[in-house]
C-alpha cells in the first residue's frame, strides 16, 4: 500500500466512524435528560448557623419532565434540619418540579436550606439530593458534604452577660449644647439584674441618665432577663468650652457583670458677636456740626475666635462715622480674653443738619459672624445760635432803654 491509498483508507475510516458515532449518539439521547447542579457542594459550616445553597435543576432534553426530589440524610445527621425550598424569600418545601423545554422555564433554582444544630459533633456529613423522573427512567443525584468545625472560643467571647450598645457613638454639637446619646443595655443572663450606672467624663462636664423618652434621672437600672433597656445619656459640657473631641466612657455594672462603652462628644466652635453700648441705650444725642464720640463694647460669646472684623456704617448723606480701631484681625472668645473690646465710634454731623431723629446702622462684620447695631441719633440744633438771638434782642432792648433815658421827660 502506498502512502496515498493509506491516507484514503484512514480518511474513509474516520468518516465512517464519525457518521456512525453521530448516529449512535442521536440514538442514545432520546431527547430526555436533566441535571442537578449546585455551585458549592462541599462547605464548612458552623454549629447553630443556617445556610442556604442554591440548587439548579435544568432540563436538557426536548420533553417536559416531571422530577420528584428527595433529600437523603446521613444517619449521623438525623437531627439536622434540612429541606429543599423554592427560591422565594420565605420558601416553601418542594417535592416535585416540572420543567418545560423552553426558556425560561426549562430550569428551576431551589434552595437547599440547612440548619446546623448546636449539638452537632464536628466531622463530615453527607446529604444526597436525588432527582427521579416520573417514569423512573432518569435518575440524577447531587451530593453535598458539610464539614462541621469546632466553634472558636476566642471569636465567640460570649459578649458578656451585660451588654451596652449604641448606634451613634460619636455626636457633634456646637459648644453650649448638650449631647444626647441613645444607649441600649442588654441583659444576656437568665436573671433580673439591677445595674449601677457610672460614667467618666472630661473635667467640668456633667451628665445624667434617663430612660428613653422619659424625664426621670436614674442612677441604677433594673433589666429583666434576656431583655434590653433603652437609655438616654445626656452629657452637658461646661458653658464655655473649646472646640475639640472629648471622650466619655459609660459603665453599667451589676455584681461581677460589667459592661462599658466608649462614646465621643465632638464640640465644634461657635461664633457669636455681641455688643453693648456704654449706656446700654441705643440712642445717641448729638448736636449738629459737632462730633460725638461714644464707646461700644464688643465681645465674642462663642467658643472660637472670629477673624477679620471690620466695621461699617450706613448713615445719612454727609455724615461722618469713624471707628477706632476700624478693624480687628481676630476677636478671641470672651472666655479667653475675659473682657470686651472697646470700640470708639465718632459721629460727625454736618452743621446744617435738621434737628430730629436719624437712624444709623453700624455693622460689625467678621468672617464667622456679624452684627448690626441700629442706633437712633437725635440731632439737636446748636444752642449758640439761640444765645446769639438772645444777645440781639438784648442789644435792641438796651438801645430802646437808652433812647427812653435820653429822651425822657420832655
Amino acid at each position, binding site marked *: 500500500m502506498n502512502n496515498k491509498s493509506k491516507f484514503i483508507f484512514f480518511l474513509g475510516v474516520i468518516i465512517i466512524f464519525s457518521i456512525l458515532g453521530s448516529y449512535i449518539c442521536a440514538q442514545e439521547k432520546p431527547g430526555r435528560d436533566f441535571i442537578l447542579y449546585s455551585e458549592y457542594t462541599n462547605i464548612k459550616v458552623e454549629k447553630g448557623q443556617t445556610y442556604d445553597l442554591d440548587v439548579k435543576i435544568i432540563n436538557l432534553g426536548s420533553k417536559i419532565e416531571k422530577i420528584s426530589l428527595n433529600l437523603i440524610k446521613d444517619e449521623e445527621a438525623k437531627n439536622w434540619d434540612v429541606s429543599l425550598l423554592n427560591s422565594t424569600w420565605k420558601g416553601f418545601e418542594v417535592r416535585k418540579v416540572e420543567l418545560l423545554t423552553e426558556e425560561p422555564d426549562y430550569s428551576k433554582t431551589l434552595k437547599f436550606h440547612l440548619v446546623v444544630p448546636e449539638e452537632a459533633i464536628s466531622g463530615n456529613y453527607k446529604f444526597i439530593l436525588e432527582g427521579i423522573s416520573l417514569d423512573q427512567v432518569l435518575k440524577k443525584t447531587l451530593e453535598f458534604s458539610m464539614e462541621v468545625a469546632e466553634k472558636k472560643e476566642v471569636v465567640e467571647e460570649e459578649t458578656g452577660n451585660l451588654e451596652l450598645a449604641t448606634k451613634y457613638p460619636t455626636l457633634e454639637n456646637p459648644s453650649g449644647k448638650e449631647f444626647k446619646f441613645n444607649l441600649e443595655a442588654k441583659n444576656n443572663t437568665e436573671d433580673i439584674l439591677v445595674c449601677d450606672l457610672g460614667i467618666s467624663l472630661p473635667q467640668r462636664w456633667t451628665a445624667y441618665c434617663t430612660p428613653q423618652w422619659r424625664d426621670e434621672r436614674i442612677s441604677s437600672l433594673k433589666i429583666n432577663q434576656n431583655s434590653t433597656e433603652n437609655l438616654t445619656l445626656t452629657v452637658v459640657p461646661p458653658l464655655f468650652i473649646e472646640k475639640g473631641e472629648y471622650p466619655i466612657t459609660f459603665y453599667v455594672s451589676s455584681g461581677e457583670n460589667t459592661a462599658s462603652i466608649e462614646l465621643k462628644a465632638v464640640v465644634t466652635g461657635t461664633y457669636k458677636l455681641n455688643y453693648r453700648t456704654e449706656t446700654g441705650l441705643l440712642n445717641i444725642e448729638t448736636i449738629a456740626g459737632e462730633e460725638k464720640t461714644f464707646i461700644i463694647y464688643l465681645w465674642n460669646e462663642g467658643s472660637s475666635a472670629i477673624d477679620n472684623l471690620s466695621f461699617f456704617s450706613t448713615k445719612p448723606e454727609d455724615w461722618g462715622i469713624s471707628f477706632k480701631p476700624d478693624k480687628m484681625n481676630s476677636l478671641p472668645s470672651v472666655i479667653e480674653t475675659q473682657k470686651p473690646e472697646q470700640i470708639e465710634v465718632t459721629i460727625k454731623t454736618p452743621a446744617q443738619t*435738621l434737628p430730629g431723629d*436719624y437712624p444709623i446702622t453700624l455693622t460689625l462684620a467678621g468672617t464667622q459672624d456679624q452684627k448690626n447695631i441700629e442706633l437712633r441719633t437725635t440731632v439737636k440744633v446748636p444752642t449758640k445760635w439761640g444765645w446769639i438771638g438772645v444777645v440781639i434782642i438784648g442789644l*435792641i432792648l438796651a438801645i*430802646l432803654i437808652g*433812647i427812653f433815658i435820653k429822651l*425822657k421827660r420832655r
Partner: protein
Amino acid sequence: MNGLKVVFWKEMADHLGSRKFIILFAIILAISVSVVYILSQNISEYFSEISKEYMFLNLFTTSAGSLPSFIFFVSFFGPLIGIIFGFDSINSERSRGTMSTVLSQPIYRDALINGKFLASLTTIGIMLISIILIILGLELGVLGIIPNFEEILRMGLFFVASIIYIGFWLSMGILFSIVFRQTTTSALISVMLWIFFAFFILMIASVIADQIVPLNQNSTLEVAAKNDEIKNMILRISPVVLFQEIVIALLNPSARAFGISSLVKLNDLLPTSLSISQSLMVIWPQFVGLIALMLICFAISYIIFMRQEIRAT
C-alpha cells in the same frame, strides 16, 4: 411811672369800651369758633391725618373743608387788628386837639406813647387769650380731648408769638400815626403795607427767584431747591411769613424745615416729634427777627414822637 399808669388805664378803658373793639372781637371770635366747631364735627374725617400724640394742637392747624385753619386767620387778620389799634392813636388826638391838653397835665410824652402802646398790646392780648381759651374749652367739651403739658406749653408760646406779631403791626400803625397827620393817610399806608407783606411779597419773591435761577421743565431738583431758597430768603422779609413759619413749627411738633431744599434732607429723618426746645430752636431766627422788628418799629416811633413839636392848635 404814675403818668404811664394813668394813660394806660385810660387807654384800656377806651379800647375795651370802643365799638371797634367789640366788632373786631365778635368777628374774630365767630370765625375761630366756627372753624373749631366744624373741625370737631368732622373729626372722624381728619382723624387719620392727625397724629394722635398732638391731636389737640392739630385742631388749630388743620383746615376744615373750605374754611382755613385758625392760624391762617391769626396770621392774616392779626395785622388788621394791630393796625386798627395803632393807626390813629396819635394823629387822631392831634387832630382833635386833645394832645396838647393831655400833655399840659403832669403827664410826660414818653408816658403817653408807652402807655398807648402797652394798653393796645394788652387789649390785643386779652382778646387773643380769650379766643384761645374759648377754643380750648370748646374742644374739651365737644371732643373730650385733654391737652398734654407740652401742648399747653406750645400754645403758650404760640400766644406769645402772636402778641409779638400783632405788636409789630401795632407799633407800625403807631409809627404811621405819628408820621402822618391825617388818620386816613396812616390807615391807608398801614393797610397797603399789610397787603404788600401778606400778598404781594409772594409774587415778588417768585419773580425775583425766577430771574436769578430760571426754572424750566428740565431743571434738576438742585436748581429747584436753589430757586426755592432764594424765594424763601426774600419771603422772610415779611413778618407775615416769619410768623407763619413760627406757628407751623410751634403747633406742628414734627415740622422742622421749610422749603424744598430742606425737604431733600428730610429723607433720612425719622418722622418723630421734636421736643419743644428743639422746635423753638428751629424757628428761633424767625422769632428773634419778629421781636427785633417790633422793638425797632416802636423805637423809631418813640424817637420821632419825642422829637416832634407839639403845639396847641
